[in-house]
């Protein structure tokens, strides 16, 4: 296993350390990652099989410059064309890909760029995912905001001008149950026009409840579509169950959510295969749920508290740009979000090519918006961050920068009906 991830903490008991080491070194000590745990709903769907058969048979080394040129000339980008655009053979064609991507983005979205901000309301987590700052063995300040604190955070954010919020939690059903998240959604509806969720995957009836509470978009990152690799990175907790996570967006759409977000965390496994699977996950679900508004993100690994060695390995900015251009050409109608994990320079460039949504005024910590937004010292304690962000621009600065690039920042294009 990659030793860049494994960090011991002096705060863990001998018993906890022993269990942690056993999970890390002895695969037989871990639960099966392909078996649903009790209470996890199983739906009937052929989407997973379709995505996985394409991914497993994807041999990106076989594509040549000729295939890439043909893909760029085709009016409609087929799956084969998309595979060529993701392949190493497409690297010398990055500028042409960007040109084509820009045309597609402009056709479907004009020159608009949507703005949003995430709000972490709790960082308790029951999972041991080795690369994540919230993992249960990482020694960080844990915190869960109560409704009063959430309202305060939301007010600070809403006062900055932001109209779309993405509510996040660590993955702890025990600490942050569905009811708690639902109450947070109801509060969010008072302060924001659009409410999205990025929480642990839940069952269809729970998504339906959260939808009724005001949420309309559900984002779940699959992290990696390579289930064997996934097994070695998500060692404990509900998140370990790979297929239940894969089907989360479909359950959300079945429950009446308007849209869903998808992504692999690039750098965990073979990024070309993960990018292919992410896009095909969207592609097949769109065919099944044509009314759904689907979006893709493209996060790369970032350093976390207590481990600054974590990095996105072979996924440099050029590779990331290639993936995003390929996404845009293959799926011209989907939203593409680029988060504050990426640098200011990269984000300024990519919104002119393929991205349609960026975050601003971001904190991945808990309860610290007032100090971050106004510089005012907060009285209460704060929870630590999930990862280190790169682009720390405020809402106002982002708004101005986008306008200066000749693009149009949009705060809301949505109605809850």
């Amino acid at each position, binding site marked *: 296993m990659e030793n860049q991830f494994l960090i011991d903490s002096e705060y863990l008991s001998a018993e906890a350390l022993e269990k942690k080491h056993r999970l890390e070194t002895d695969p037989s000590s871990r639960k099966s990652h392909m078996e649903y745990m009790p209470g996890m709903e199983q739906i009937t769907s052929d989407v997973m099989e379709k995505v996985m058969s394409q991914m497993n048979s994807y041999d990106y080394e076989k594509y040549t410059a000729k295939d890439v040129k043909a893909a760029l000339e085709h009016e409609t980008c087929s799956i084969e064309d998309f595979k060529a655009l993701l392949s190493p053979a497409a690297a010398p064609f990055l500028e042409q890909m960007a040109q084509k991507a820009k045309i597609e983005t402009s056709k479907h*979205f004009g*020159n608009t760029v949507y703005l949003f901000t995430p709000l972490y309301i709790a960082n308790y987590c029951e999972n041991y995912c080795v690369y994540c700052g919230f993992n249960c063995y990482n020694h960080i300040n844990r915190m869960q905001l109560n409704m009063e604190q959430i309202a305060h955070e939301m007010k600070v954010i809403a006062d900055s001008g932001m109209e779309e919020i993405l509510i996040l939690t660590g993955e702890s059903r025990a600490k942050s149950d569905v009811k708690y998240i639902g109450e947070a959604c109801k509060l969010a509806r008072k302060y924001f026009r659009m409410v999205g969720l990025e929480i642990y995957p839940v069952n269809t009836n729970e998504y339906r409840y959260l939808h009724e509470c005001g949420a309309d978009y559900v984002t779940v990152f699959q992290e990696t579509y390579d289930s064997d690799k996934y097994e070695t990175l998500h060692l404990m907790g509900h998140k370990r169950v790979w297929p239940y996570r894969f089907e989360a967006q479909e359950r959300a759409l079945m429950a009446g959510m308007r849209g869903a977000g998808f992504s692999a965390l690039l750098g965990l496994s073979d990024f070309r295969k993960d990018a292919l699977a992410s896009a095909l996950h969207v592609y097949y679900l769109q065919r099944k749920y044509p*009314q759904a508004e689907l979006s893709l993100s493209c996060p790369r690994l970032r350093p976390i508290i207590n481990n600054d060695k974590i990095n996105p390995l072979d996924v440099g900015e050029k590779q990331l740009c290639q993936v995003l251009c390929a996404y845009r050409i293959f799926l011209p*109608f989907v939203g593409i979000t680029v988060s504050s994990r990426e640098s200011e320079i990269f984000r300024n460039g990519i919104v002119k090519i393929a991205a349609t949504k960026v975050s601003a005024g971001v904190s991945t910590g808990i309860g610290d918006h007032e100090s971050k937004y106004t510089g005012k010292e907060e009285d209460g304690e704060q929870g630590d961050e999930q990862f280190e962000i790169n682009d720390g621009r405020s809402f106002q600065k982002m*708004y101005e920068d986008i306008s200066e690039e000749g693009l149009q920042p949009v705060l*809301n*294009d949505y109605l809850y*009906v």
Partner: protein
Amino acid sequence: MKTKDKLVIGGHEFDSRFILGSGKYSMKLIEAAVRDAGAQIITLAVRRANTKDHENILDYIPEGVTLLPNTSGARNAQEAVRIARLARELGCGNFVKVEIMRDSKYLLPDNQETIKATEILAKEGFVVMPYMYPDLNAARDLVNAGAACVMPLASPIGSNKGLATKEFIQILIDEIDLPIIVDAGIGKPSQACEAMEMGAAAIMANTALATAGDLPMMAAAFRQAIEAGRKAYLSGLGRVLTRGASASDPLTGFLH
């Protein structure tokens, strides 16, 4: 042009036959559409107007321009009705463009749901302008449902592909007594002109202007193209040979 050549929608008269669509909004676009393209009707996506202080579109609509709120974002008749009512509450007037899409990829309209919503909204006193796929039977149903015009698509929204559905739009123009307003897919002034020559009552466009290099100049070009097409239609187009030449000796010359 004859001064009496007005576009009449739901009893309201307009001199301009260019309507600005809502797809890609910007304040510059609204300005150019009104000043250079002469638009008197501007579409407004209610969901886009559902905003707080920053650049609320409602603040940028010039006086004397008729707002046409649309129901984009609606996935069925019920949602469209709800959005239309909200538009009225927001003070957007009685016009509504019904747009119902169950497809996020091509944004193609759902004719069946559109007919249902049109019927409900027309009864509530709205001037209903339904966006539809050019199908004669659906268009007749829309007329019966109380539509104020019929708005067939030329090609998919944002595609700038022009009159891909030309033959079917012509059938609507020939058979439907309401104004036929060609909506979506018009990519350049020549296509707008062609639709007007066919007898379309007006053109709705957005992307073609929004993505132009020089927005005001393109807006002016659309105005001229639409006026030219309208004049050509009113003048009665001359003979257009579609293929080969016609016989110089009349075929019926043997009849005495």
